[in-house]
């Protein structure tokens, strides 16, 4: 479909810079998604984020120091990211995802 974005506000250097910085952080995390099944792995990811040593934030440091318990989610989930695909023609949705 050749769709591209129309986001004129991206021309704002501050917005772009902030977004790119944040994107780098989240990319690291997402790329290691399967690895982050435990808090210890989360600590490793946090350490890998450029320019922000884990120890610089007591809150995050302590928060990610202990392994998750059974009460936590599988943060890594299914591992590789699988994009949705077009639904087969005429298929009936099993569920709806929307705001709640």
């Amino acid at each position, binding site marked *: 479909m050749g769709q591209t974005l129309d986001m004129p506000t991206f021309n704002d250097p501050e917005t772009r810079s902030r977004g790119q910085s944040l994107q780098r952080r989240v*990319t690291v995390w997402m790329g290691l998604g399967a690895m982050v099944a435990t808090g210890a792995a989360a600590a490793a990811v946090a350490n890998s984020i450029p320019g922000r040593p884990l120890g610089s934030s007591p809150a995050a440091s302590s928060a990610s120091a202990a392994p998750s318990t059974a009460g936590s989610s599988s943060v890594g989930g299914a591992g590789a990211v699988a994009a949705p695909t077009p639904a087969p023609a005429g298929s009936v949705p099993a569920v709806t*995802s929307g705001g709640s």
Partner: protein
Amino acid sequence: MIGAAPWTAQAAGAGFWSATRPALGTTAQVVSDSRWSAAVLELVDGVLAGMDQVASRFRADSELSRVNSDPRPEVEISPALAALLRPALMWARLTHGLLDPTVGDALVRSGYADDFGEMDKDQPDPVEQERSVPGWRLLTLHGSTLCRPPGTGIDLGATAKAQAADQAADLLGQQFSDGFLVSLGGDLAIAGTGPSGGWVVRVTDDHRSGPEDPGQTVALTAGGLATSSVTVRRWRRGGQNMHHLVDPRTGLPADGPWRTVSVAAPSCLQANALATAAVVAGAGATSILEGTGASARMVTTDGRAVHLGGWPVVGEELEPMVRSGAAA
């Protein structure tokens, strides 16, 4: 389970069964590609009950409510609450505070102080001025010891419900061989193999929408899919429209160009965190999402759709958002 609303089971397309019930202030739904067993729903009931008991901001007897009202600067919390706080803090860090578990007081000040189904939807009180939230960096969690300034209102709405969906799906996948789709308020987690070609999911503004409402129908084979929207959980306060997605920088409802963001990611938690962060980020949202590996469908407040990261365009019922001059 005492006090829980009963499940309503129904057929959900060829060969599928679905069961729904109210839970966590929204709708819980479990879809299976095989026959139901009571054990399936009991397992999900257990997850929902545990989440409500630990993390509800609207139950005076929940652990979170007790922590929020505890005057001591240090409190011991359960492993379950700690397991909810850790990812909340991690995502606060990863998003530079676009997600922040200290939005609790801001939500109360905006009028979202009670269970949404019971709260006044037209409040005469004026909207307060901008005031950033205390900030997630004030929370430290050492093992089971939570340190924070007394009076800091913690809210786990941006992460806990999605964690519950992931947890329910994980447990179902561990204990049953069937394929399952768990939805909590439209935030989805998949367990097992599921149907050939993936689960067919309708994506739209409101998880209660019918097929007549504009959206897109896609198929999902693994991981999670979550949608954050400013169109559903809304009320009026002082004559202004309010919603529940608070921008921690202002302490007020996010006021950006996106009304709804859906994200597919390896887990429901990841998907929900990114979707909510994108709504809060506003103009910078696409920059944040691009390159993360997540797929996203974003809808502007005027009803145009943007697709990122491999999210299909086929089947989109909204007008696409195109770059000026790009189209012939």
